[in-house]
Each structure stands twice: as C-alpha cells, then as structure tokens.
C-alpha cells in the first residue's frame, strides 16, 4: 500500500474518531436529567425523561405502547387504589425499534416487575420508516445528543408546561362511541391484521430483555372499537401463545371492567377518557393484587413524593371536568402571552 493511501486512511479514521469524541462530549452535556427540571425537553421525550428521573428501584410497572397505552392506565390512580408504582413510557404512534430502546432506558435503574405491552404497535409497520429506525434508534440510545437535539427550542420558545403525571395525560372530554357494541365482529377497514416479521423480531428482543431482567411481560389490547376486532385479537392471541407470553384482551372484558361507551371515550371509541382509564386501571390493579408479587408502598416515606403528586393530580382532575389537557395547555400559553404583553406595556 502506498504512503498516500495509508495517510488517507489514517486521516479518515482520525476524522471519524474526533467526530465520535465530540458527539460523546455533546451527549454527556445533553443528558435529559440535567435539563428536565426546567421542562426543557420536548413533549415526545418528556415521558421517558421523567421516568429516568424517578428514584432508582421505585417503579414496579412499566406501561408501553402507542396512544392507546397512554389512555389505558393512570399510574396515580393505581397508587391511590393499591399503592403500586407504575409509569406510562409509551408515545404516540410508537414503533417497535423505539419501543425496545425506550424499555431499555426506562428499566435501566429500576427493579421493574411487570411490563404491560399494549398490542397495537405490533401491527404498525412501514418499511421505509422502520428500516431507518434500525439505524437511528441505537444511535439515539448511545448518543443522547441526537435524541434530545431539539433541547435548544424551549430557550427560544419559553419553558414547556408539565402535563404528565407519571406519563399519564389527563383527558376528561366525552365523545360517545355510537357504533355497534358488538364491535369485535366488525371490519376495521384497510388496516393490517397480520403481525409483520419485523415486529415479531423486535418483540422477541423486548422479551429477551425482560426475561434477563426478571420482568413479567404481559401483552394487552386496550378496549377500543376503532382499533380491534376478532381477526386482530385472534392473531395476537396466537402470537402470544407462540412466544409464551400472557395476553389480556380488554375488549372481551368490557362488561367486567364496566366500560360505558356513552361516557368513557374521549374520541368516539378510539381512546378512553379519564373515566374509562380509571376503570381499566382498577382492572390492572386487581390483576396485580391477585398475582401478589407487588408491594403496597403507601405510607413508605421513600415514596412520599407519590402522595404529593397525587394531590397535584387530583387538583388538576377537578379543574378539568369535561375538557382535555390540550385546553389547559392552551389556556396557560394564552395567560403567559398576556403576561408578556402586559410586561411589555409597563
């Protein structure tokens, strides 16, 4: 090999090494915990950031999935009823590679006993987006600078508003589901009903991680006429059997849970509002009680912050009768704008 060639290769390696060094340094400076106090993290990453701020070894249950999972469990209600600590770590429209790395990050410093996995993301697949994620997600996981790169925005736009309570976003809007109560026999339209191989592979990675950490993985389908029917549910049941994972289909337990489709949905049968979520949470709480693995932490001084958060949560719930948090957020933003304008005038 000629000297010129050697020198070229050395330069390329050196350039790459310096880049990695700079990226590592930037990542060390942009760790989410460092920034979260000021609500500097953007909404999508806010849940996982808050999760990583929890005291080590205090979270019993992680609830993962897309928006359906986020409207299936309210951790503060679980705390009130049973004293179990849970956290919603999902995100809207989440895809399997993101799920895997989010679980990895959330469970890192915790002694999690259950991972509740809402099943809708198992059907979500787009080769264009998901193939990109195979590369981007491990990079985001390794280099937090990439994941939290929009951290500069709140410095221009102002601080965010704390909207999550252990990952749950209060929504008390009521929009009745007017469809067939026996919706499981209905067709869902042009949606995927088979679980793609890509998602099966990534699910197995999640399961492997859970097995290694001693976490019980439970697949569940949220009660949702807009998203589930027998075809989908049967395919998940078969998949769960193949994988040796427990599967709970809430759609088959709506009477037992007490779902009232006139009052419990905020968007005509797609997602649950707070009333529906409380009922679902009670169902999960009873399930955990029956299993007898989790401890009731109420009264434990190490968990006193949960009581404080419950008080704040209850106050907000009272304020939000009939509305969703988006209304509150808009109101807060409007108030801030008015304050700013007043200050300018003065």
């Amino acid at each position, binding site marked *: 090999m000629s000297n010129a060639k050697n020198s070229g290769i050395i330069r390329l390696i050196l350039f790459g090494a310096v880049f990695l060094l*700079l990226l590592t340094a930037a990542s060390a400076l942009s760790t989410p915990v460092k920034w979260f106090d000021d609500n500097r993290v953007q909404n999508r990453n806010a849940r996982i950031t808050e999760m990583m701020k929890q005291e080590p070894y205090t979270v019993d249950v992680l609830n993962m999935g897309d928006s359906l999972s986020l409207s299936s469990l309210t951790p503060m209600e679980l705390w009130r009823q049973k004293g179990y600590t849970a956290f919603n770590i999902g995100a809207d429209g989440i895809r399997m590679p*993101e799920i895997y790395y989010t679980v990895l990050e959330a469970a890192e410093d915790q002694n999690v006993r259950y991972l509740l996995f809402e099943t809708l993301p198992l059907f979500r697949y787009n080769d264009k987006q998901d*193939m*990109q994620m195979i*590369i981007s997600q491990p990079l985001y996981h390794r280099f937090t*600078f990439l994941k939290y*790169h*929009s951290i500069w925005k*709140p410095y*221009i736009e102002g601080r965010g508003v704390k909207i999550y309570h252990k990952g749950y976003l209060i929504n008390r809007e009521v929009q009745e589901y007017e469809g067939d109560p026996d919706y499981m026999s209905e067709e869902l339209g042009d949606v995927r009903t088979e679980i793609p191989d890509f998602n099966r592979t990534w699910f197995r990675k999640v399961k492997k991680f859970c097995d290694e950490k001693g976490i019980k993985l439970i697949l569940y389908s949220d009660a949702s006429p807009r998203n589930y029917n027998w075809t989908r549910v049967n395919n998940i049941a078969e998949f769960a059997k193949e994988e040796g994972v427990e599967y709970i289909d809430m759609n088959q337990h709506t009477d037992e849970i007490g779902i009232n489709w006139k009052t419990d949905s905020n968007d005509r049968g797609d997602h649950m509002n707070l009333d529906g979520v409380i009922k679902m949470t009670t169902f999960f709480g009873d399930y955990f009680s029956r299993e007898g693995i989790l401890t009731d932490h109420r009264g434990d001084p190490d968990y006193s912050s949960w009581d404080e958060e419950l008080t704040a949560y209850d106050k907000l719930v009272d304020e939000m009768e009939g509305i969703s948090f988006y209304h509150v957020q808009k109101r807060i933003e409007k108030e801030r704008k008015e304050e700013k304008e007043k200050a300018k005038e003065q």
Partner: protein
Amino acid sequence: MAIYTNLYLLVFLPVVLIVYQLAPKKARWGVLLAASYALYISFSKYLVLLLMATSAFTWGIGLWLDKIGEACKAKQAECTDRKQKSEVKKEFQKKRVLALRVGVLVLLGILFYVNYLNFVIDNMNIFLGKIGTQLPLVKVMFPMGISFYTLEAVGYIADVYWERYPAEKHLGKLALFLSFFPQIMEGPIARYPDTSDALFAGEPLNMANLNEGFLRIIWGLFKKMVVSDRLSYLTTHLFGNYKDYHGSFIVLAAIAYTIQLYLEFSGSIDIVIGSGKLFGVTLPENFNQPFSAQSAAEFWRRWHMSLGNWFKNYVFYPITVSPMVKNWNKTARKKYGKYWSMVGTSAMALFPVWVATGVWHGAGWKYLFYGMYYFVILLFGVAMEPIKEKNYAKMGLDPNARWLKILRILKTWVIIFTGELFFNAVNLKAGFHMFFSIFGNFHISSLWKYWPNAITTGDVWAICVGSVIVWIVGFLKESGVDVRGKILNARTPYKWGVYYLIIFAILLFGAYGTGYQPVDLIYAGF
C-alpha cells in the same frame, strides 16, 4: 432508501465505497451498476425490470442506428457518383428516422402510460359521463425516476441519431449511465458523454474527491434538514388549509414554498453530486443562484438547469430549425416584418417546450397551467425586449444600474413566487382561489394574530438563520468567491473545523428524530 436517509448515508454509501475500492478496476463499473439496481429495488421492487428493459431497448436502438449508418456508408462506398450517394443516403435516412421514431415513441409511450394515461381517462370521463359511459382507470405502479431516466434515454437516442457520438456497444455501460444510483431519483439529467467515461473508468477513490464529495453532501443535508424540512410543515399546513387564511398567509405560503422547494431540490442535488464525486464522477450542475436572476428567462437558465438544457437541446433547437418554423420565418419576414417574425418563431418554439415542461412535472391541469404561465411570461419578455431597450435609451437610463438590477430581481421573485403558488396548490381551482385572495383579503396583521401551530418560534429561527447562511454562501459565489474551493484548499484543522461545524449544525438544528415526520423529496415524485 432515499438519498438523505441515514440508511443511505451511513450504510449504503459507505458499503458501496468500500466494495468499489476493494474491487478490481475492471469490475468497478459492475459494483456501481449492482449498487444502482439494489437502491432502485429498495424503492420500486420488481419495477427494476422496467428500468433494465428500458436500458436494453435504448441500447438496441442505438446499435440499430449505428448499423444503419454503417450499412449506409458501405453502400455509399460502392456508389460511383454523388447523385447515387445522395439517393443511398436518402434511402437509409428513412430507416434512421424509423429507428429514431420507434425509440422515442416507445420510451415516451411508457412514460405516458405510467404518468398520464389516468389523467387523460379522468378528463375523458367528464365528457363520457354525460352520455352515460365511463372508461376504467388503469392500475399503474410508479417506477421511481422514470421521468428522469426516460429523458436521458431519449436524449441518448437523439444524439446517436444526430451522430453527436457513436452508439455505446457495451450494454452494461449504458445501463449504468441510465441507472447511476445517486441521480436516479431526482436527476440531474445528464447527457451520455457527461458521465459515461468516469462511470466506467473505475478510478480508485482519492482524498480530493472524497473531501469534495463529503463537503457537498453535508451542505446539501444542511439545506434540506435545517431549513426545507421545517418549512414543509408550514407549507403543507397552509396549502392544505388555504381557505382558512388571509391573503398575507397566502403570500407567506408562496414565498415559504419557493424557499422550501429550492433548498430541498438544490440540497438533494448537492447530495447527488457529492455522492457522484466520491467515486470521481462529476455530474452536471442543476442550480446557479436562481434568485439572482433578473428575468424569468434567466431564472430558468439557473434553475433545474439540466431539465432546461434537455428541452433546449431536444425540443427547442430541433423545432427552431424545423422546415415548418423556417418556412414561417421566411414568409412572416416578408409579410409582417422582422419583429413579428421573431415573436412568431419564438412562440412556435417556446410553446411545446413549456407544455412539455409543465406536464413533465406531473399529470394535472395545474402543471399545464404552470408551463403556460412561463410560456406567456417568456414570450412577453421576448416581445418586449426591443421596446425595453428603446425605452432605456429614451429615458437616458443605464440598464446596468444597480437599482434597476435590484428592481428586476424583485420583479423576477414575484413571478417565481406566483408560479410556485400554482405549482403547489392542491389543484388549479385552489391555485386561483389562493391567488385572488391575495388581492381581496390581505391583512398583514393576521400574520402575528393567527400564526398556525404547524411550526413554532424555534422553527422560524432555525429557518431564518439557515436561510441567511445559505443566502450568504450563494451571494459570495455569485460575487465570484469560491467558498467551497477555499474550504477544500484550507489547512486540515480549518477544513475539519468547517466540516464539524456543518455536521453539528445539522445534528442540533435539523428536523429529524422520533416525532418528526420524514419529508419526502418533492422531485422524486415526478
């Protein structure tokens, strides 16, 4: 796997570079061809067969033309006098025209079938519906880049017909020219001699090319990810909900879309040209500071230059020298004078060019209108040119005065923004609705009163700062400062410093990551 994705930039491109370098020199063109087909399959799956068939067909037509030419020469050699030779030439010319027609018609026929047939059926059905009948639409899969490689193939056949260069004997070489992976999605539309030698040479990678290519790629990413992608959230919202907004927002939408389109298209062309450069292949430029243009005609000489050149070479010039136009010129000069003959000739040559330019962008009335819009403006420019010169002289104005230049640039901007408003409107009706709302319903204050949630203040900052940086670099280039050359020739620490600065600007201010919807390339859909 689009050229701006991490899969392309972090996996595909490095792997192809390594395999290319490790392969023996003679096999390197094969590596590029295999990579090109692999990338194509990632978009269009089995439609790669159509690309292969197009390559084989184009190659066959080229050989046929060559064969006719050789046969003609052989027969002419047997001739004893000029008259005989001329007759032989005439006889073979007919065959050559036949070969050309077959080649062009088949290639354009496929393009018509894929892109325009359903548009024609849709419009026919409007009339057929009145007599109670309907034609069924045809199910068509869209082969990525068909509008680009078809024009290259037609250009190749025409050039061989005009004997600008001999037909390529090597099928693989022609196939690589038509499918070269960086340019298959968005061009630039190259002519065969532009790239064929470099593609086939198999020269080893070298640091100069790697540096140049790398700088070009990261600059393109900066334009797309920092500015264009953020703007797309705003323009998608405004164009999609145009009825909800006052004229001031429509003006904003037109300006924002023009900037978005320019930075996205020129940015992706930077990535394309940069990718080619890594392998030592110099692709033709597609942009040359189009917003410095002082007229619509100049704008089109600086914007999507490879498409403009293609139409100039294969539509405009052939029509200008066609017997029909020559006859008109002759007759009109006598009958109406030099001026009207010139205007008429320009109209005859410009009209097909702008019909074609319009519909090349897509099957829809708005695209046809877009073409006609520029046809009218350019023809008006041609017609006004002598009058303008006279007026300058009469008024004692220096046409090169700075303030006049600025005025002309601003006038050109208005023309461009208006054109892009129609170009990106949902349809032609929506385009007119948006256009007229500017005049009837313009409230500048609504800009800050009703700013949409589609983008935030942070996004606006990133867009403004990013645009200013791109504008400064463009301004320096227009003023004769070779910024890229200066960076590439700088000492390594400075050069690397600039690289890292651009990369970290993209990583920090770019619109990417979970929660950001990836923005598809606009021209990849044509």
